[in-house]
């Protein structure tokens, strides 16, 4: 089953002092993951940003796997980032795209049980954005990030749906696209009332919303 998972963290909304406290970050990252930060050259990446980077990767992995395992419970400390290649740049200039070729990405692998997944993340001064895929190839993954004027959950939900639908409408002209949720709470794409086999993932935090979906061929949705 093909899937996608993404997450966004608005850096203005995180509690920096609390994130640095052991009792807090130890509920998000495992000791073996703290070693990655301590032992690898991570450039000027702050520890609190590292913690939330791993959170966004883990949440993305959870969303990816939830499509296949509806009963899955998000467990940050059991979802482990195994390998991470740090980015030399944090200059995010494009906020919509397909794939991450030439983008300033952090990349690596994340595991949950026997599942090994692959991630790409981008960090700007304002946000951390991650996407997870089952293969180390994101050419077929489309994504978008948008700053919105409200942090109200109802507005976030409405605006992230409109953002994704606007993108998909360009690729699927003549359709009546709508986003709904499966009984398990997984977002699904509908043409009218009929579900379309295009995995989508939605994310929001504070004033940021983001999406990912899978495409194939010449930019056509999977």
């Amino acid at each position, binding site marked *: 089953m093909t899937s996608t998972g993404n997450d966004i963290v608005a850096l203005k909304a995180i509690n920096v002092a609390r994130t640095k406290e052991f009792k807090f970050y130890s509920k998000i990252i495992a000791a073996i993951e703290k070693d990655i930060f301590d032992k690898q050259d991570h450039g000027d990446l702050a520890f609190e940003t590292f913690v939330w980077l791993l959170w966004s990767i883990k*949440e993305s992995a959870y969303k990816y796997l939830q499509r296949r395992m509806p009963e899955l419970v998000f467990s940050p*400390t059991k979802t482990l980032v195994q390998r991470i290649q740090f980015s030399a740049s944090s200059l995010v200039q494009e906020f919509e795209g397909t794939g991450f070729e030439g983008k300033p990405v952090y990349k690596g692998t994340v595991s949950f049980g026997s599942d090994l997944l692959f991630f790409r993340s981008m960090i700007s001064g304002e946000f951390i954005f991650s996407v997870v895929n089952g293969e180390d190839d994101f050419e077929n993954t489309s994504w978008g990030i948008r700053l919105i004027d409200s942090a109200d959950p109802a507005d976030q939900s409405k605006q992230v749906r409109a953002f994704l639908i606007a993108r998909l409408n360009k690729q699927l002209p003549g359709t009546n696209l709508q986003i709904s949720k499966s009984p398990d709470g997984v977002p699904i794409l509908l043409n009218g009332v009929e579900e379309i086999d295009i995995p989508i993932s939605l994310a929001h935090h504070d004033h940021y919303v983001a999406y990912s979906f899978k495409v194939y061929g010449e930019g056509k949705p999977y």
Partner: protein
Amino acid sequence: MTRQETLNELKTVIAPYTINKELLSSINDETDLIRDLKINSANLVDIIIDAEAKYDIEIDYDSADKMTNVGTCIDVITEKLDQKK
């Protein structure tokens, strides 16, 4: 402490992380923190840490993973308080 008392106290723990405070007046065991109370998942760890501080308990990783709705939050807090006795 009765389950109702724990529920009432839990509302004060959850309140800072939900924008629509009026939703708290009708919560019950089945209320999902993310789906029903619209709490951002990034704040779930805050709720666990605040519950630990409020009750002077330690919530282990497996217990923390269970705290997705009001009922399981009360269960975990009650269990950890019982272990202190």
